[in-house]
């Protein structure tokens, strides 16, 4: 292969496969896997990020591999959209792989070498998905991504609930894959040529284009975790080991977004306005549902999983806005909405993986996942605590970190929606902006709960006194991701210049004309008079005023501090159990958003000898949608079991009858 960016990418992916194979050869040699293989994987990921950075500005490059089906070899193509998502993959995977090098330990159900195999197969298949240029290659890569992540999710397969989570994950992944396959079937439009290049040239009738879009939304949405196909996310992410959860949340969900963008803006040659409204509605429902449920969880990783659902909702809302603007020909505004969407993909990858890795460190240090048994870890694990603070503030969407920038861009895009020509739309969409603002405010609530209950306060269990900070590899991984959060927050203009290369081919316009006119420090996407934000000046101003206050107070007064017990209001027996539990902190949301939940309460009666009070908050969609469907499927398959007789002569008769029928047909 030549040394073009595409060739280098394919070489890196093959190198990952080789690393995985090496892990297979020596499954139990922990030191080899942890000290050699995973760091090598991290280096390769960083190299991938550099290659992708160079490839974003380059023109598209195509390569046909001598593998695959006889009349459909694997086509690969690297254009700006692929390069952007490869950059995301490489940058985040570098940090996660370094962390995993320190995190991996034996005795967790799967041998380290096998984990290395599945991990690198996962990374390689994601890279192949992002550069695939024909339907067959895409589906092969998609399936290997699903299968390798299934084995990663069920790493600790000795526990029944983890096996169950893996099964549910695989099931919904395949339902989505069927939908994607059907979508590709529609896209080829009768030419029987399944390469993406041929699909680009086909001009489908509006009805078939709509069918293709809806199939893509359902299929890629199942992988991304939109309502109502989200039930696998809160089960699979907590079940997987933390580096895998981080990768799944950060990168795998974004490959689904990549697929959606690729189909809607690249393979379909035109967009219809109501597709955008459907995507907007689905995204809004997903965002509100995700954040409301994450506020009532009492397991660290489930909370983060539901928060991922919320962020995917944001991304789909941005996507819907982009489609609506593009359908009305408002290309500059479509570019703004697309920039907000892509920026949020990048941001979420960084801050969510940082938080998942932090929970991994906490899990290994304390062996506890339940929020009700943690607390006060900022004293025992300062590195993890302070870096997780960066992640929590970024997830809450607070300035000057990266979460705020994409939220700012999305709200700016919403402010332009009254220019839309349709009467209902230009009234309904500002209401959607209100819902987005509500979801963003609730995510701040969730992050205060998460950070406050895990790291702050006093330890709720005595064994937490033995917790300690993780090793150097894990710290490097966490620092890498936290630095990314800060950099993405402070230097948005540079990132937008990169994203412009992606939005240009997709929607026809970029933001670069406006950003070129303004200063490098100020983010002014449309017009500096209209809206302007400078995170660098903001941070400088905040730090200057804070430091000035500190110096002034020290200079004019003094810095004496005395230590004393906290205020106990006259009750001398305060202990750590009297702090808020996770359920307690989520109670206001549970009361205010009561119609969303299905709550099962266990109430004691006066006659109980050992009274118990329990509250279980569950997902109502599981009971309204999934269980009825499961019952229908079981009943239908009950008819098929009639065929199973258990006697060999009956089965032989089936084969014989088939043979006779075929002979009859062929004669």
């Amino acid at each position, binding site marked *: 292969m030549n040394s073009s960016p595409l060739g280098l990418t394919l070489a890196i992916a093959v190198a990952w496969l080789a690393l995985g194979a090496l892990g297979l050869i020596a499954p139990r040699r922990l030191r080899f896997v942890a000290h050699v293989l995973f760091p090598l994987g991290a280096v390769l990921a960083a190299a991938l990020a550099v290659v992708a950075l160079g490839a974003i500005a380059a023109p598209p490059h195509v390569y046909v591999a001598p593998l695959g089906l006889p009349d459909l070899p694997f086509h690969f193509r690297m254009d700006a959209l692929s390069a952007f998502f490869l950059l995301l993959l490489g940058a985040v995977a570098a940090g996660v792989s370094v962390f995993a090098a320190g995190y991996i330990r034996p005795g967790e159900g799967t041998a380290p070498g096998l984990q290395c195999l599945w991990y690198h197969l996962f990374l390689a298949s994601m890279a192949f998905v992002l550069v695939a240029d024909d339907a067959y290659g895409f589906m092969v890569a998609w399936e290997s991504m699903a299968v390798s992540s299934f084995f990663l999710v069920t790493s600790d397969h000795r526990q029944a609930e983890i096996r169950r989570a893996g099964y549910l994950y695989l099931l919904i992944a395949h339902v989505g894959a069927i939908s994607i396959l059907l979508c590709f079937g529609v896209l080829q439009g009768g030419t029987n040529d399944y390469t993406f290049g041929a699909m680009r040239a086909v001009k489908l009738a509006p009805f078939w284009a709509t069918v293709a879009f809806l199939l893509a939304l359902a299929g890629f949405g199942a992988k991304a975790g939109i309502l109502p196909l989200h039930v696998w996310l809160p089960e699979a992410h907590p079940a997987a080991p933390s580096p895998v959860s981080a990768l799944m949340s950060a990168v795998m969900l974004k490959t689904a977004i990549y697929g959606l963008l690729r189909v809607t803006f690249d393979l379909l040659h035109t967009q219809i306005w109501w597709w955008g409204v459907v995507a907007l509605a689905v995204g809004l429902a997903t965002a509100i549902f995700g954040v409301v449920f994450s506020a009532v969880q009492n397991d660290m990783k489930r909370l983060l999983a539901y928060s991922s659902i919320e962020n995917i909702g944001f991304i789909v809302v941005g996507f819907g806005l982009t489609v609506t603007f593009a359908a009305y020909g408002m290309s500059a505004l479509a570019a703004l909405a697309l920039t907000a969407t892509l920026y949020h993909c990048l941001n979420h990858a960084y801050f969510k993986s940082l938080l998942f890795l932090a929970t991994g460190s906490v899990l290994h240090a304390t062996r506890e996942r339940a929020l009700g048994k943690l607390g*006060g870890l*900022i*004293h025992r694990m300062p590195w993890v605590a302070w870096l997780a*603070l960066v992640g929590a503030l970024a997830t*809450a*969407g607070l*300035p000057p970190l990266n979460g*705020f920038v994409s*939220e*700012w861009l999305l*709200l*700016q895009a919403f*402010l332009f929606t*009254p220019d839309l020509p349709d009467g209902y739309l*230009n009234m309904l969409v*500002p*209401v959607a902006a*209100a819902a987005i*603002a*509500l979801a963003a*405010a609730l995510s*701040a*609530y969730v992050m*205060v709960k998460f950070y*406050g*209950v895990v790291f*702050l*306060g006093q330890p709720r269990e005595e064994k937490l006194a033995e917790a300690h900070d993780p090793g150097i590899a894990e710290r490097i991984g966490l620092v890498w991701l936290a630095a990314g959060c800060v950099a993405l927050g402070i230097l948005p203009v540079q990132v937008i210049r990169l994203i412009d290369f992606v939005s240009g081919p997709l929607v026809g316009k970029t933001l670069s004309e406006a950003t070129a006119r*303004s*200063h490098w420090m*100020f983010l002014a996407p449309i017009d500096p*008079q*209209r*809206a*302007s*934000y*400078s995170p660098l000046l*903001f941070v400088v*101003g*905040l*730090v200057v*005023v*804070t430091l000035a*206050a500190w110096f002034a*107070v020290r200079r004019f007064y003094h810095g*004496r*501090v*005395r*230590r*004393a017990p*906290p*205020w106990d*209001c006259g009750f001398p027996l305060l202990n750590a159990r*009297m*702090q*808020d539990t996770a359920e307690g*902190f989520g109670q*206001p949301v549970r*009361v*205010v958003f009561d119609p969303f939940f299905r709550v099962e309460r266990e109430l004691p009666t006066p006659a109980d000898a050992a009274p118990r009070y329990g509250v279980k908050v569950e997902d109502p969609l599981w009971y309204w949608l999934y269980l009825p469907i499961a019952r229908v499927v079981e009943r239908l398959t009950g008819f098929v079991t009639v065929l199973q007789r258990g006697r060999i002569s009956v089965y032989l008769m089936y084969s014989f009858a088939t043979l006779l029928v075929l002979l009859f047909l062929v004669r």
Partner: protein
Amino acid sequence: MSFSWSGAAAQLTELVLAILLAPLLLGWVNQCRAWLQNKGGPGVLRPYLMLRRLFAKDAIVAHGASPLFRVVPYVLFGAMSMAAAIVPTLGTDLPYAPAADAIALVGILALARVAIALAAMDIGTAFGSLGARREMMVGFLAEPALLMVLFTASLISQTTSLATTVETLSSRELAIYPSLAFAGVAFTMVSLAENARIPIDNPATHLELTMIHEAMILEYSGRHLALVEWAASLKLFVYSCIGIALFFPFGIAQGGDATGLLLALPALVLKLAIGGFLLALIETLSAKLRIFRAPEFLGTAFILAVLALLLHAFLETP
């Protein structure tokens, strides 16, 4: 972006003025409340005396506090000062304005809220987490409402930069915007909630179980408490100035000439005095709501703010 040294001087003056005047506004509101209740009152300058007394004392920190607890008062003060720097109080020529717009203003206020909530959870007593939980509950309904109010003003003036919004709103010929009326009612309700005033929270209570804001700062003392209280009065000042800038912007100097700014100062003081008196009046006439009636109150504010947006789209765009 037009940067001028006179503009920078004006901006710095406005910031220093805001920091110095904020306790005076708080003192005036408390004094009005006392007068309305037929009491003598503590005097308008009482907050300054309190600050001086607190700064001189030792800071007492609980045993389990982390460095986060000691850093937060400074961060809080810094964030509120930044908010005061963005809101046009005297003039609209603010060189710092391009650094942060209306959405960033809401972001700064959210940052301050999250910071104090985390500090409250740091000690690990029941009161701190109670206060944090209630404050975040008030916050997650009030913040979107405030954002929608600012959006209404932004849609009318076609910009999110506060300085430009004030310029546009104050320089149009007599134009009455009904959407701003709805937004005004919503804004009043939101500022009552965010500044911990009756009917959401009683700033003078000493019963821990009824506190929202006070419960979060129970553990602070000495210079830390002084900074937190100063930041709270700055927050009241900022909210009052936002209200004045959006709904009564007459008198704010356009551009940065010195005479305009000098004339704007008495106008600002007069408007703040009237606003403070009205705030005290509302507080005296209302009763504190039960904690779970507060989401209803704020939900009403949120819906009114959304209605303001809709009214703008329906009535005011051709």
